[in-house]
Structure formats: structure tokens, C-alpha cells
């Protein structure tokens, strides 16, 4: 259930914590800044500190369950990447510096988790509409912002559709778990083709429905609920930036 866990973590659901009241632009800045911080961190202590800060932020927003789900879903993927990388490094240069390898993997885990927890905070507390409004306010034309949001909203629908397709084919005796590798691979065709067809039909229907409601008629558009940067937003972003920056000198003093 790797995909299920990860998609649950990213999914938007309405709750009532301060995180939902924050301006989406502030949350975008937060994700960008945190990502940069963790990628510039060379000291593992800074990485761990920034990671812990993300867990605290998620906790303060009532998102701990999502973080657990994300970690559960990502662990097998990361293990796979590490195993693959180790094998590759070993094949190319058998004299591995174990310490360097451990350091690299450790930083990779820290960076991936930090970035994705911040991303989870963004996506699971920001509705697609808010996110689109944020893009539009950042001077990106809504004609381009909208498709991005639609892609994001379509992912769970496509997964659901693929599940239905899988069920329909299994009901006609398709078995994906049996047979040789080639046969299994060929058995994916009855799942993939209906999925693509249904996605294309959905896209066509959506395009028609949007054009029927005059999408793109005017270069500018208005929003029913306007987003505005409030004191809470500034307090949040300044606190995060200061604490994350403070990690560098503190780590340099105590863990260098």
C-alpha cells in the first residue's frame, strides 16, 4: 500500500487548525525555504534539526497522522533506492568509502523526509482553489495555473478509476499475479489501455464543461474568497525562517 499511504498524506482534507488559515503563498514560501535550507545543510545535525522542526510544524497543524503515513509509504521506496545505489556504486568502484556512503544516504533520507513533510503540510492544508489563487496572485496566468491544479486533483480520481478497471478485468478472469514475467507484463495491457482511454475521455469532458462555462473568456478573473496575508502568516513564516537559520550557527558551535 505504498501509493495509498503517500497519496493519503498529500490529500487535502478539511480540518480546523491554524495551518488551514494560513495564506497559501506563505505556505509556498515555507516549502521553498525549507527545501533550500535542508539542501544547503552539510552538517547532519542541521539536517536532523530541520527535519525535527518540520515534524513539530506538522504536529502543531494536527498533521502527525499524515506524517506517519508518509514515512510508512516512503520507507520501502527509500530502501529500494539505497539498495540500488549501493549496488551501482559497488559495481563501478568496488572500493567503497563506507563512511561516505552512510553519510550520503543519511543526508538523502533527511532531505527527502524534510522536503516531503513540508510538501505534505502544504498540500493537505491547502485546497486546490486556494493554491490556484496563490499562483494567480503571483502573476501566473490562470489559464496555465488551472491545468496544474487539475492534474493534482485528478490523481486520486485516476487511481480510483484504475482500481475499477482492475476489478472489471479480474471479474473476467485476468490474473496479474500468475505466470511468467513476460506474461505478467503483457497482462498489464488490459489495465493500461482502458485507463488511458478513460483519462482522455475525462479530459475531453472536462474541457467541454469548462468551455461551456466560459473558461478563459477574460484575461483576468476574480475569486469568490480572496486570500490575504495576515499577521498570523507573517508570524508563522518569520518564526520558521529564524528557527531554521538558527540551526546553522548552533550546529556549528556544538556539533562541528
Amino acid at each position, binding site marked *: 500500500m505504498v501509493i*495509498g499511504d503517500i497519496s493519503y498524506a498529500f490529500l487535502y482534507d478539511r480540518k480546523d487548525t491554524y495551518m488551514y488559515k494560513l495564506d497559501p503563498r506563505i505556505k509556498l514560501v515555507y516549502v521553498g525555504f525549507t527545501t533550500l535550507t535542508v539542501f544547503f545543510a552539510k552538517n547532519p545535525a542541521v539536517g536532523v534539526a530541520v527535519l525535527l522542526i518540520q515534524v513539530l510544524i506538522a504536529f502543531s497543524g494536527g498533521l502527525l497522522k499524515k506524517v506517519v503515513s508518509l514515512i510508512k509509504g516512503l520507507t520501502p521506496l527509500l530502501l529500494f533506492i539505497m539498495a540500488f545505489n549501493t549496488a551501482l556504486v559497488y559495481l563501478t568502484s568496488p572500493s567503497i568509502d563506507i563512511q561516505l556512503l552512510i553519510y550520503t544516504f543519511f543526508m538523502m533520507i533527511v532531505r527527502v523526509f524534510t522536503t516531503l513533510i513540508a510538501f505534505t503540510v502544504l498540500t493537505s492544508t491547502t485546497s486546490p482553489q486556494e493554491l490556484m489563487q496563490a499562483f494567480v496572485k503571483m502573476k501566473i496566468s490562470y489559464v496555465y495555473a488551472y491545468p496544474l491544479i487539475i492534474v493534482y486533483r485528478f490523481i486520486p480520481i485516476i487511481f480510483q*478509476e484504475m482500481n*475499477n*478497471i482492475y*476489478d*472489471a*478485468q*479480474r*471479474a*473476467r*478472469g*485476468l*490474473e496479474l499475479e500468475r505466470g511468467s514475467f513476460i506474461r505478467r507484463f503483457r497482462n498489464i*495491457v*488490459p489495465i*493500461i*489501455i*482502458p485507463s488511458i*482511454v*478513460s483519462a482522455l*475521455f475525462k479530459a475531453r469532458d472536462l474541457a467541454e464543461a469548462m468551455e461551456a462555462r466560459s473558461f478563459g473568456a477574460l484575461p483576468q478573473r476574480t475569486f469568490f474568497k480572496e486570500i490575504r496575508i495576515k499577521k498570523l502568516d507573517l508570524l508563522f513564516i518569520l518564526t520558521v525562517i529564524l528557527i531554521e537559520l538558527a540551526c546553522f550557527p548552533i550546529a556549528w558551535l556544538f556539533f562541528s
Partner: protein
Amino acid sequence: MVTKEIIKIENLWYTYSNGYTALKGINLKIYRREFIAIVGANGSGKTTLIKHLNGLLKPSKGRVIVFGMDTRTTSVARLARHVGVVFQNPLNQFFEETVEKEVAFALKNFGKKSDSNKISDILKNLGIEHLRYNSPFEASLGEQRRIALASVLIYEPDVIVLDEPTAGLDYKAKINLLKILKELLAKDKTVLVVSHDIEFLAKAPLTRIIVLNSGNLVFDGLPIEAFYNIPLMYSSKLIPPQIPALIIGLNLQKYATPLNEEEAYETFRFLIKKVLIDGHR
């Protein structure tokens, strides 16, 4: 008419991974040659229930026995040989270039030989023989439904389950579907229909009707009993068929209980005759 018990559902509970309990303690027995309708509002658990019949879903609690096999321990492929399910959206299954290949897909899966005559017979029977070498994607919705049905009928399962077979079909296509279902019953098959389409069901020669309401089985009995039970229909968010509603409105149910127009003509002919003769006396 009713004979051997083929499917037994005992205290079936099913909870989805998001914590939603779709079925709450369903007990049900299905016998050979029955024609059963499963009705209920959206989200009452109809589709969840039929997905248990071929093992696509495994019970959270309780068990489902299909032809003596426990669905928890039997593969979907094995159960699907006995229970053919035709899903609502035919586009969810089409992937071959021609209708012929699409229909033969299940045969390949079950390791049977693709029999050209048999495919011909089934396509002819369903009135879609002219589409044989066309792409299934180009057919109309009614035709696509029939192609989907053909792709299940080809391997001759004992039980045929149809999920919302009439959604989006015009009147003529519905009558056509009814004819096909009657032929299946004549061939000793068991047919289950999941539907909202009460008027369609009122025309069908059902042996039993099952009403689900938010995961509970609230009624299991004869169609007449269900359709003439207005409180049951409304509490299950269903609208009673027009003819029973009319008969109840006129308070004539003690004289006759017709379900559809044909039965109603008989009833009214009888009642009018009676009134006229009584009136003369």
C-alpha cells in the same frame, strides 16, 4: 422453481480502508434460477455487496460461500468462472481492437479455446453481430453495454450479476435487455440485477427483491410486497413504481396488485367491467 442454494452470505460486514462501513451484517441465500433485484439509494452498499460475490472484496467479518467455496480463500479467477459480473461502465474493460477479440478475452483467461461460432451466436443473440469487427470504443452506449454483457456470457457463468444495467439506456434498449435476461433465466442461469430503475424492475419477472439501506438489509421478499410497501420504499430513498403508487392512491390494492402496465390493464378491465355490471344492477 426455486431449487439448489448456490450462494450463502453469513453475517457479512465490510469496512473500507478509509473507515467507512458499507455492509453491516448481511445474511442472504441465493438459489439456482432466481432472478433477484438488489435496490437501494446511492451509497447503500449495493456495489460493495456484489463485489463480494466473485471475491473482488473479501469480508471484514462473516463469510461468503459461493458454490461451496469460501471467497476468503479462493482466487477471484476461480470464483469468476461461476459468477460473472458486468460492471456499470463498459469503458472500464474495453482494450482490444475489435468486439470479437474483446468478447473472447475471458475465454483466453480461463484457458478455453476461442470458438468463432459461439461468439457469433452470442453477438447475434444480443443484436450486435454487425459490430463484430468494429472497435468497441466506437459503439453506442447501449451497444457497449451489450458488448460488456457478451464478454461475460461467452464463458457461461452460472450466476450473472449486472450493476446498473439500464443507466443511460433508452426505452427500447431496456426492453431488449429484459428480453435477454429472460432468455438467460430460461437457460437455468441465476440473474442478479443491481438497479435504481424501479420502473424497469417492475416490468421484470423478478423472483425476489432485496432492499439495502445504509449497509443494512431491510427487506428480502417478493416484489409485490416491496413495491406496495410505500413506507419501505420512501425510507430506502426509492420511489415506488407508478402503477402500485396509482393503485394505492385509488385505494384499490385489496382488489388487485398489478406491478406494471400490462398487469394494470387487466386489473382495470376487470374493475371497470365490475363497476359497469354492478351499476346496471
